[in-house]
């Protein structure tokens, strides 16, 4: 307890005022925030990948016309060694990350592959598991750097 109670009163007032003013300014800045770039978001990319449906003939060497989830095709790619689906995924991630370094790890059963750079200081990250129609799960992990 400070000996000078008058000074303590002023100090506490100032602290409370500053705290509430900071809250008010942050609320106002969020409301009137500018339209601007926030950096690529890993969850957004993962959501797009999980929702995507393609024909295997679109991005593999298979002559298969049935529409399946992209994640099923990626699992096939890991199991069979067909690199075309991974090239497609890399093309998409290059677009999404627009120059930011990224690392995507895919694993299906005993097979695993990595796309992107080896070492990324993660700015935005996401992990997901996708059920594969033929059985098992595809595990995906995306890290995007600044």
């Amino acid at each position: 307890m400070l000996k000078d109670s008058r000074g303590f009163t002023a100090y506490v007032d100032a602290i409370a005022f500053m705290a509430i003013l900071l809250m008010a300014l942050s609320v106002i800045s969020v409301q009137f925030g500018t339209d601007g770039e926030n950096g690529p978001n890993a969850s957004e990319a993962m959501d797009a990948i999980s929702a995507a449906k393609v024909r295997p003939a679109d991005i593999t060497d298979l002559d298969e016309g049935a529409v399946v989830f992209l994640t099923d095709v990626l699992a096939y790619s890991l199991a069979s060694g067909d690199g075309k689906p991974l090239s497609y995924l890399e093309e998409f991630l290059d677009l999404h990350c627009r120059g930011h370094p990224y690392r995507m790890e895919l694993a299906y059963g005993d097979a695993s592959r990595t796309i992107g750079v080896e070492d990324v200081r993660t700015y935005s990250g996401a992990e997901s598991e996708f059920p594969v129609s033929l059985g098992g799960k595809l595990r995906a992990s995306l890290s995007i750097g600044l």
Partner: protein
Amino acid sequence: MIGSRNGDMGFMEAVLSMMAVVLALTAFLGAAAVLISADSGADLRFNAGMLGGEILDGEFVPSYEGYLQEYLDATGRSYVSVEAEIPGGFCGDNTISAGTDPGSGYSTLFRTAAIGCDGGRKVPAVFRVMIC
């Protein structure tokens, strides 16, 4: 002014003063929030959720053409352009704009989403929005 310790409650005085300040500033915050929400009938930010479309016969058909002009009218900005890039060769890139391009001073935002394609497919697309 001659200092006097009469009426000096010490720590209690400090707490009461702080409570008075907190109440006054909370009332101010509440009034400001009510005024802001009443004024902002239209959101000043570009709604990236409006970006979408579908691929028909190898051509991208956007769903946001009308929204671009509405955005300019609502915010008073002079120019907005949206470029849609779809990897994998499903269709070519597509760029739509509204307003007058000033040539510089843009702010940029991006959105990634899955869009519809022929035959029940959904493919990832990356939208780049430039606003001035």
